[in-house]
């Protein structure tokens, strides 16, 4: 073997292009940190642009797997990830996932070779419910993108909220790509709810929050959701719509751990900006995986997989992460943040971590 070959299957254009690009940067820091070598061999990375299309993602994966690939990294959208997991399983190639959150990835459709080091939908959902309770929200209105994951998330969230004594004032499912949220937001504001669960994806996040900003939405009700707001989104939404929005966070550059400090410094030096949550998660998962590969000391994919399934990352960027052998899901804590005006040297909209949740709060035992 001449090189350790990694295929990065991420969108570099289209709606999720910005996410894929950030993941590429984060992963790159993980490679550079170890001088692009693992097990004494150079790391050889090929990045493939999936153009935010599952079709293309599958095609690029098929091609990448036709070469001798040792690790596959990606995708962003859970649909793509689920589709390419079938291929990595068939070819027995380790597959590292640091963004897609769908429960099926490490649930119903889990495979031996696919590992997720980042959050799941279920845990983020629980964070929202818990956040609403802690903030004493009484009534919640839901605006949810009309696709399967959205509907599933809402069903779980609704049950969770109701179990906590929070009432649901109303719910609207809206097609992905809705260009006008004014009516829906108006309905939500008139419903008498004090909390808005905004469970939308991609460009719809920007649209809904921008248009919310026009009518002062964040000042009128507590807007919350999963991956609803971060510094990247803040830039796209602008101050009026973004400030005051509450969101789960996968990672934040302010996390106070030695590894994170090192990572943020390296990232800033390399790219001149602070790492986003996508970059942070990508770095974290990739560096963890490579360290485990290194630790096995042998050139054997199966051994690497076995080792990773039971590994514990004590010094991840956000504290301890534990890989669960039962479902290849990393058990970890959760973050919740609120968008505030950034100080000097910070993005205009900066997330402030307001709540942290322990992994016990968020994960059910594996079976």
């Amino acid at each position: 073997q001449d090189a350790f070959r990694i295929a990065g299957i991420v969108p570099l254009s289209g709606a999720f292009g910005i996410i894929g690009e950030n993941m590429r940067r984060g992963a790159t820091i993980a490679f550079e940190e170890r001088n692009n070598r693992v097990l004494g061999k150079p790391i050889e990375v090929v990045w493939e642009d999936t153009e935010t299309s599952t079709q293309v993602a599958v095609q690029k994966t098929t091609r990448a797997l036709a070469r001798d690939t040792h690790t596959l990294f990606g995708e962003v959208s859970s649909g793509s990830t689920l589709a390419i997991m079938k291929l990595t399983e068939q070819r027995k190639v380790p597959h590292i996932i640091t963004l897609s959150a769908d429960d099926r990835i490490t649930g119903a459709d889990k495979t031996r070779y696919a590992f997720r080091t980042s959050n799941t939908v279920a845990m983020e959902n629980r964070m929202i419910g818990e956040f609403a309770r802690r903030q004493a929200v009484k009534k919640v209105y839901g605006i949810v993108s009309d696709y399967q994951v959205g509907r599933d998330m809402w069903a779980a969230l609704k049950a969770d909220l109701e179990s906590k004594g929070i009432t649901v004032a109303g719910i609207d499912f809206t097609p992905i790509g809705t260009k006008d949220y004014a009516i829906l937001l108006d309905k939500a504001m008139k419903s008498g709810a004090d909390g808005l669960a905004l469970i939308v994806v991609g460009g719809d996040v920007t649209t809904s929050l921008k248009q919310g900003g026009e009518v002062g939405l964040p000042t009128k009700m507590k807007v919350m959701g999963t991956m609803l707001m971060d510094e990247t989104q803040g830039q796209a939404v602008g101050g009026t719509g973004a400030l005051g929005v509450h969101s789960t966070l996968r990672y934040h550059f302010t996390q106070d751990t030695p590894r994170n400090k090192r990572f943020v410094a390296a990232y800033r030096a390399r790219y001149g900006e602070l790492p986003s949550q996508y970059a942070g998660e990508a770095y974290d998962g990739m560096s963890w995986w490579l360290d485990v590969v290194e630790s096995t000391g042998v050139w054997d994919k199966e051994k690497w997989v076995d080792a990773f399934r039971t590994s514990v990352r004590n010094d991840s960027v956000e504290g301890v992460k534990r890989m669960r052998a039962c479902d290849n899901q990393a058990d970890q804590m959760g973050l919740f943040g609120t968008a505030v005006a950034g100080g000097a040297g910070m993005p205009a909209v900066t997330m402030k971590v307001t709540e942290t949740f322990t992994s016990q709060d968020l994960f059910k035992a594996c079976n």
Partner: protein
Amino acid sequence: MSTFVIGLSIGMLLFLLAAGLTLIFGMLRIINFAHGALYMLGAYLAFQIALWLGFWWALALVPVLLALVGVLIERLTLRPIYKAPHEFQLLITFGLILVLEEVVRATWGLSGKSIAVPGWLSGSVSLFDTDVSRYRLFVIFVGLLTMAVLLLGIERSRIGLVIRSCSTHPLMAATLGVRVDHVRTAVFAVGAALAGLGGAMAGPMLPIQLQMGGTIILDCFIVVIIGGLGNIRGAVVGALLIGMTRAFGQQYLPDWIDTLTYAVLIATLLLRPQGLFSKKERLA
């Protein structure tokens, strides 16, 4: 009632977005698939100018810049192939989408942008018990203004006559003394400028990102088709019809909205195959 006002604002924004497409289609018979890309370019330029000089400058300068881009595009890529079948113009505009997106990506990167509007346009006013954003009222205003200018300038005056002649029978128009080349360039420039205006106006309300053009172009087509391909009055009616469908649909049946929009469209096409406003030609 507030639904109506919001529907009006949706319709007017749609009209602004579709006006340039309608114009170029109606006058040059070119389906400009790059319209969305020009709109995106307009939005990004507006973002940049707003950052440097403020929102009003953006609104004023973007149409001018886009008109220049339009002139360039028309001269370099479209002029040589007017004689070719229409599909070739389509191919060019497809190519232009890719090029324009690449230019924007190389200049501004992948992350989304936003434009802040001046203080007195932000925030909302209470209308019929509802908080309606001031900016939406401004959109309605600009939409109406654009509509008036286009209707007076093109449908009523002789300019429209000249322009239409260049699209339907350029050779004969030229034989009668019309400077067809100049007219085409001007029309394309105005169409591009309108796309830019649409981009600048939409900037504060819709995501400014690379794929914004692709997501808007289908809406524009819907408006243009309902209106009877390239008829300004028709486009106004089409835009309002879709605006209202969306607003009332969202009020009462939000998850059926897209299906509804297309149902309205297909119904129009089937009942009035040539669109709401259009004329038939003699064949034999």
